[in-house]
C-alpha cells in the first residue's frame, strides 16, 4: 500500500514537472498509436461497412473470424511483423525494424479487427433500420455504405477509441518490433516494463498512472468534440 501512495505522488510530480524524457516518451506513444489508429480506421471502417451490407456464402465465417481477431495476442502480431520486417524477411530491405514505423504497423494490424468488427455491428444494426428508405431511394451499395457510415459517425468514434485504447496500452508487439531502444522506440508501456524489470515498482506504477491519465484525457476530449458536433449538426 505504501508503494501505491508513493507512486501516486511520484506520478503527480512527474506530470507537474513536465520532465523532458517523460514528455518525449509520452509524445512518441501518442504519435505511434495516433497514426496507427488513423491508418487502421481508414481501412477498417469501410471494410466493416462493406461486410455489414454484403451477402455472400461464408459471410458468417468471416464475421466470426473477424470478431475472434479482436483478441489477437499482441506478442503473436509482434512476432509476425518482426519476421516480415527482419533483414532476413520479405520486407527486410526497407530497414524499418526497430523504428517507430515498425511499431505503427504492428499496432495498426492489432486494432484493425477491433474497429472493423465493431463498425460491422453498428452499421448492420443501422442497416436493419434504414434499409427500406435507402432501397426506396434507389441508393447504390456504395452510397448506402457511405450514408450509414456518416450517419453513425458518433457511435463509430467509440469503436475508434476502443482501437486507440488497445494500441496505446499494448506492450508485447511494440517490445518485439521496436526493441525498446532508449530515445528511439521507447514508449510509455515499454518504459513501464523496463522499470518493472529494474525492480523500481513505484516509478513503473507512476508511469502507468501517467499513461492512464493521458488516455482518459483523450477520451474526454473526444467526448467533448462529439457532444459539440452533435449540438452543431443537430
Amino acid at each position, binding site marked *: 500500500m505504501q508503494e501505491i501512495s508513493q507512486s501516486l505522488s511520484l506520478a503527480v510530480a512527474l506530470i507537474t514537472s513536465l520532465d523532458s524524457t517523460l514528455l518525449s516518451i509520452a509524445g*512518441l506513444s501518442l*504519435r505511434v498509436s*495516433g*497514426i496507427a489508429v*488513423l*491508418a487502421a480506421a*481508414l481501412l477498417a471502417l469501410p471494410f466493416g461497412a462493406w461486410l455489414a451490407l454484403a451477402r455472400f456464402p461464408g459471410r458468417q465465417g468471416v464475421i466470426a473470424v473477424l470478431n475472434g481477431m479482436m483478441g489477437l495476442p499482441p506478442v503473436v502480431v509482434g512476432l509476425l511483423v518482426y519476421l516480415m520486417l*527482419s*533483414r*532476413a*524477411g520479405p520486407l*527486410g530491405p*526497407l*530497414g*524499418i*525494424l*526497430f*523504428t*517507430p*514505423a515498425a511499431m*505503427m504497423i504492428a499496432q495498426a494490424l492489432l486494432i484493425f479487427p477491433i474497429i472493423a468488427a465493431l463498425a460491422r455491428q453498428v452499421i448492420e444494426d*443501422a442497416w436493419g*433500420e*434504414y434499409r*427500406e*428508405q*435507402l432501397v426506396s*431511394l434507389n*441508393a447504390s451499395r456504395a452510397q448506402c455504405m*457511405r*450514408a450509414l457510415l*456518416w*450517419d*453513425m459517425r*458518433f*457511435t463509430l468514434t467509440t469503436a475508434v477509441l476502443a482501437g486507440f485504447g488497445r494500441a496505446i496500452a499494448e506492450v508485447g508487439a511494440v517490445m518485439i518490433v521496436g*526493441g*525498446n*531502444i*532508449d*530515445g*528511439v522506440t521507447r514508449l510509455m508501456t515499454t518504459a513501464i516494463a*523496463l522499470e*518493472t*524489470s*529494474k*525492480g*523500481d*515498482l513505484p516509478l513503473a506504477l507512476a508511469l502507468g498512472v501517467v499513461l492512464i491519465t493521458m488516455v482518459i484525457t483523450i477520451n474526454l476530449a473526444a467526448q467533448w468534440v462529439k457532444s459539440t458536433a*452533435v449540438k452543431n*449538426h*443537430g
Partner: protein
Amino acid sequence: MVNRGQPVDKKGVVIWDNARNLLVALTGKSRFLVATLVGMTVLNIASPGGAGTAFAQEKFIVVASTTSTQDSGLFGHILPLFKAKTGIEVRVVAQGTGQAMALAKKGDADVVFVHDKAAELKFVEEGFGVYRRDVMVNDFVIVGPNSDPAKSSGNDVIAALKKIAAGKSPFVSRGDKSGTHAAELRYWKAADIDPQAGKGTWYRETGSGMGPTLNTASAMNAYAFTDRGTWLSFKNRGELSLLVEGDTKLFNQYGVMLVNPAKHAHVKKHMGMQFIDWITSPEGQAAIAAYKIEGQQLYFPNFVAQRR
C-alpha cells in the same frame, strides 16, 4: 429506436437527404483526412527518431545486447561518451544472450555484445560473427532470504548450491536460455545436481529476464542466481540479501563482435568496428571501470590484459 442520439434524423428519408447533402462535406472532410494523414506521415518521416531515420543517412548502429548491461545502467554511462567522441548513436536492443544472437543471425543488428563465451565462439565459428574480442568481466552472485534457511552464505558457489538443493529451499531460475541461465546450469552441473528434478517443488523457472526473475524471488522470498550489476541496481529487494560472492568460478566474461558483413551486406561495418575499437581502447576500458553503483565497481575491463 430510429434515433441514435442524433437529434434531427427522425426519419430515414431525412437521414438520406441529410447524408446526401453532407456527402459533399464528407468528401471535403476525407480530402482533409487524407491531407492530415499525408502531413503526419511527412512529419513523421522528417522528425528525428521517426520512421524516416531508417532511410536517412543518420549515424547510428544497432547493438544486440543483454538485459543485464542495460538494467545495470552501464550503457547509460558509456554510450554518451562514445557518441560525444564519434557522433555515432548506439541503439541498444536488450534481450537475453540467446535471443540477442538469434537476432544477429538474422542480420537485425550490427554489433553483438553479450556474455556467453562458449556460445559466442560457436557463433563466430559458424560464420555469423567476426572480430570477437573480450571486453570485460563481472561476477555472478547468489541472493536469498536474509534468514538464509539453507545456510548457503559464503564464497563457495558449488557448496552453496548443494545446500540449497539438499534443503529443498525455494530457488528461482531465469529458465530463458540467457547467458546467466546458461551459467547457472553449468554450476548445477558442477555440483552434480539436476535441478529439473525439483521442478514444480523447490525449483522454479520464470522464463523471463533478470529483473522479473528477481521480482519473483523477492515475492517468494527464494534464492536466485544473478549478476552483481543487476542486483546492485535492483530496487525491489524485499527480504533478500547477497549471500554468495567472491568465488573465482563466478567470473563472467563479456565479449563484443561484429555481425558478419559477408553474410549481411547491410551491416554497418565501419561504424560497428569503430564501436568495437573504442570499447576495447584504453579510453573505453577506463569508462567501463569508472561505472559504479553505491561505490562498487560493476564491470572489470580485461581486453588489454589478454591482448597478445
